[in-house]
Structure formats: structure tokens, C-alpha cells
């Protein structure tokens, strides 16, 4: 029996949190609708125990970017990474989101600087994610 009454009812919250973790803003309503539909389909292929664990962790965490990164490297929450990938696909279909995906202005220095900043951000996030995952495991 699930500890979460209806995981599908949480898909909207899940969508908002994942979108914010990747793109840092409010999820467009049409992307949210599509994410909820797709997420429900995805959940059907997941064991109940894994889904309970996933939703508990997802709801409790205030930095999903960090948790997802740590989970990817520790292989603890594969479902979270799948949901992140799903959100990336769905978000890319909106014209308003093209700037997130397509670089239209060349800047070698800017590109290097952003890539380096991304690497530093990753180091910080993985440390934080590992701490969050450890704290969650002990909770």
C-alpha cells in the first residue's frame, strides 16, 4: 500500500519544482499540462515503493538540482533524472524557451566563462546534493 495517497495528484507540484530547478522560473501552463500527462504515463512503469520514495524525497527537498545531480552519480533516484529529462524535452518545444537551448550570438570568452561557471556550480551542487541525500536517508 502506498504511503502517498495519490502520487498523480502531486504531478503539478512536481512539474513546478523540476521546471524551477532547471530553468529557474514559473513553468508555462501548457508545459505543466503536458508534463502532468506525461508524468502520469511514466509513473505507470514505476514500482509503488520507488514512487513513494521518490515523491517523499522530491516534496521534502528545496534544491532539486542538487539532489538530482547527486542522485545521478549515486544512482539512488533514477526516477528523478528521468523526470528532469522529460521536462527538458517538453520545455524545448515552446518558442519562448528557445533561448535556453540555442545560442544565437557567438562569444568565445562568454562561452568559456559560462562553461567554467557551470563546472563550479556542479561541484557546489553535488556536495550539497550528497548532503541532502544523506540527511534524507537519516530522516
Amino acid at each position, binding site marked *: 500500500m502506498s504511503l502517498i495517497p495519490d502520487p498523480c495528484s502531486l504531478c503539478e507540484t512536481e512539474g513546478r519544482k523540476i521546471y524551477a530547478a*532547471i*530553468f529557474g522560473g514559473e513553468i508555462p501552463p501548457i508545459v505543466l499540462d503536458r508534463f502532468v500527462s506525461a508524468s502520469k504515463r511514466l509513473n505507470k*512503469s514505476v514500482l509503488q515503493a520507488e514512487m513513494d520514495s521518490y515523491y517523499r524525497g522530491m516534496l521534502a527537498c528545496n534544491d532539486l538540482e542538487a539532489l538530482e545531480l547527486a542522485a545521478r552519480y549515486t544512482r539512488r533516484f533514477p526516477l528523478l533524472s528521468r523526470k*528532469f529529462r522529460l521536462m527538458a524535452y517538453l520545455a524545448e518545444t515552446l*518558442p519562448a524557451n528557445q533561448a535556453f*537551448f*540555442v545560442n544565437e550570438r557567438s562569444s568565445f570568452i562568454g562561452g568559456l566563462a559560462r*562553461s567554467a561557471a*557551470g563546472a563550479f556550480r556542479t561541484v557546489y551542487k553535488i556536495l550539497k546534493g550528497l548532503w541532502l541525500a544523506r540527511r534524507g536517508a537519516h530522516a
Partner: protein
Amino acid sequence: MPDIIIVGSGAAGTAAALALARLGIRPIMLDVGHSDPGAGPKVEGNLYDYRKQHDTFDLFIGAGFQGVSDVLKDEVGVAKLNAPNMAFITQDAETLSPVETIDFDPIQSFARGGLGNGWGAGLYRFTDDDLAGFPLHAADLAPHFDVLTGEIGISGADDDLAPYFGATAGLLPPLKLSHNAEKVYAGYRRKRETLARRGLVLGRPRLGVLSVAKDGRAPCDYSNTEFWQEAPYLYTPPVTLKRLIAAGKVDYRPGLLVQSWTETAEGVTVHASDIRTGQPAAFTGGALLLAAGAIGTTKIVLASQRDYETALPLLENPAVQIPFVLPTSIGRALDTHVFGLTQLNLIWESDAFGCRTQGSFLELTSPMRAEFFGRFPLSARANLGLLRDLLPAMLLLQLFFPGSAQPPARLSLKEGGVLRIAGHPNTVEINRLGGLLAALRSLGLWTLPMLIQKPVTGHAIHYASTLPMSEAPARYQCDPTGKLAGARHVYVADSAGFSALPAKNMSFGMMANAMRIATVAAQG
């Protein structure tokens, strides 16, 4: 002359029909023939201009979420075949030809034009080196290559790869290179002697992509749409098939799933069923050309023999995918007006693997950017930055090994019609790629071994050699004319009859061989 029956409408079946049409023979072609290109929108103009104006959900993903089915099912698929407008290529394959598999993921098609609908249109002549082990020579295929070159419209160049890719007569000018490919190729031209000593040769690909207008078809417009929809400049077998049907040169019978044949003294009777009603149907002819794809053809052969025990060898090209970064291109604006598939080819004579390999450098402009989101190693938001800044600086090398580089899979048929394929995990040892990676570094191409991917066995979609040609054919082998041992009127016209599987993309060689076999069959 009694009718000649062709089973299958893919590259081999269509080439066989073309050869017969040129002899004035109108074959019957039996085919399931799914042809609905789907309800997805069709892009007019450049993909990236379109993306700025339109919600691309219906183009990339579709109402049934088929474009993200790999994520939903947690599988590794072939992205192009999931696109809504391309879904017809593999439609119903799991029900029309169920397969139990171990370490092999077969891709089957029952579409009009077969898997050729989704190919990258790499078309390379087989040379005598490629035909080592075959009971035939390149000269036997040459006239058919010439005909096909005129029929298709193949772009390419007379460059360092010509000794490997065969005659250049009739080629159209090569396509425009992308910025990254141009940089790599310029570096190669400066260092070609040094690289040749390391076994590495680069050059322009041979592509069934029009660089100039031909036969009413427009040339490549560098729109990046070829990944998502039928593109008039990119040749697929249905281009020829539609022309032959319209001219009344093929009696095309769609909606039929061929199951087996029986032979008589005069000819052969093909047994099929209507895919909608299940009603049986029979067709009698003087010769049967099997061109249902290596897996489909082999299934028909085993079913005709009612053989539920024999496991036949099935070859596929092991492959690796190596993402390269050109550091000097980091931060560049995305090159949105390029041909989105193969830019350059390489041949690597590998001492480490003891064989010749062939690779294709692909631009990464056609797929969704999100396709790469989960493949970068950084945090989600940092990966998003890499999609913008690093992806435009990347080329993907798909490197293919000959089929002999790993043990063959085994294909058998169970009672009830289910196929069984027992394969092997991709056995390419990445640590033996060091010589190649070092040579490519000298061209400014950098990668990390941890980023190299080994596709699932079966995803190269080059299947062959279940019923190989031999000078002295045993059971389940063919003679040099493609005739199946023990049969009088049955020929194997597709890659099932290959005696070996070179690293080179086999499509063009298969088409020329199908023409050769059809010509022999027509002569009785």
C-alpha cells in the same frame, strides 16, 4: 515470362524492381507497406526559424508522447524513429513480427520503403576489399552502382577516400560543410601525410542528398528538417518505388504479410495474409526474390522449411559514438543552416582492432537539444548552459566495425511464429581507441573516454549474413547468384545473403547486389 515476385519494398526490394523494370519486366511486389507519415506538422523553411514561431510539441513529441517514449519507458531507442512523422517506419513491428531477444534490440520495419525511410542516405560502393569473403567482385556490381548513382543523385567528391569508396563518375558536387567540419577538414588537408601513416584518412561522404536540382527534386536547402520529416532532397527508396508504381512498372500489393512459400516444378507459390482481415492469400510466380530485410527474409525462409530448431548467424556492425569538442568553437552561435547528418567520413585502418573501420562525423543540429541534456555530466542548469555553449562546438563520430568484430547473434524461429535472437553486448573495447583519439586530437577534436557510448547491439540497424552466399552453398546458404540452396526459384536479394559484413555502410552494396540478383532471376 512467368511473374517475378518480390517480397518487401525497402532498399533491396526497390532496387530489384528497378533492375527488372529496366529489363521490361513488371514484378509483383508484396508488402505490408505502412505509409502514413503521421499527423505531425510539416516544417516549411529552416527548422530553427520554425522553432521560433511555432510550438513544436506536435512535430517533436506528438499527442501520444511517442517522441519521449524512451524516457517514459526507460529504454534506449533510436531518436529519429520516435519522431511523430517517422513513427510509421516501425509501426506495428512488434505485433507483425514479435521477437524474443537476449542482448540484441532489433529494429524492424513494415513501412513502404522499409527502414530506408529513416536512413542517413550514406551510399558507398563496395570495393574488392569490402567483398572479401563474397563469391563476387566489385566489377560484378559496378554496372548496377552506375545505374543507381544516376537514379538516386549522390553527392560526393574525388578525394582521399575515393580508393575506399569506389568510382566517382556521376557524383554530384559535395554538400556545403558546416563550420566545424570545415575546420576539421582544413586541418586534415594540412596533415594528411602524417595521418595517413597513422592509418587515418578523411574525406567527403557519399550521400543520397542532392546538392543540385535533379529530376524535379530540389537540392538540399540546409533546413535541418531531414531528421523530422520526409525531405525531397534526401533520397529514400520510396522515391524510386513511387515512380515505378506511377509508371505501371511494378504491380505493388500492399497490406500483405508474407509468411512462407512452397515450390512446384514450374515456379513458386507465396503464402501471405491480409493484415486487416487475416484472410490468407496466395501468389504464384516463376521466381521469388526475398527482400524483406535480413531478419524478415530469414523468418520467411525458416517458416517455409518449418524449421523451429536451427539457429542461424546474424551479423551486425558493432559501433561506438564518440562526441568531440572543438575548443575553439566553444561559445559559437549554433550553425543552423547546415546539413544535419553526415559531414565527413573517415577510414581508420586499426592495428589495435586488426581491422578497417569507417566513421561518420555528424553535426548535432537536427535532433532536439534536449536529446543531449541528460548526456552531459554537469548539474541540470549547468547542462542547460552546455547545450547552448558546447553543443555548437561538437561533432559526433559514429564509428563502425566490421560484423566479424564480434561473435554473430543467433536467430531462430519458434513454433507460433515468434523469432528468437540471442546476441551479445557490444564488445568494442574503448581503451583500444587511443590511437584514433590521439590522431583526431591533432585536428583539434577533443573528447573524454567517459563520454564514449556503445550503442545497444541491434541499433546500428545493419543486419546481414543469415543466409550467406557461397561458392559451394550448404543448407541455408545461397549460391553466388543469390539462389537459396535446395530451392529452384527462390533468391535472397537483401543483406541476408551477404557473405560478410564490412564496416562500410551496406545499403548501396545491398541495392546493387539486389539488382544483380534480380537480373539473374529474370534470366531464369
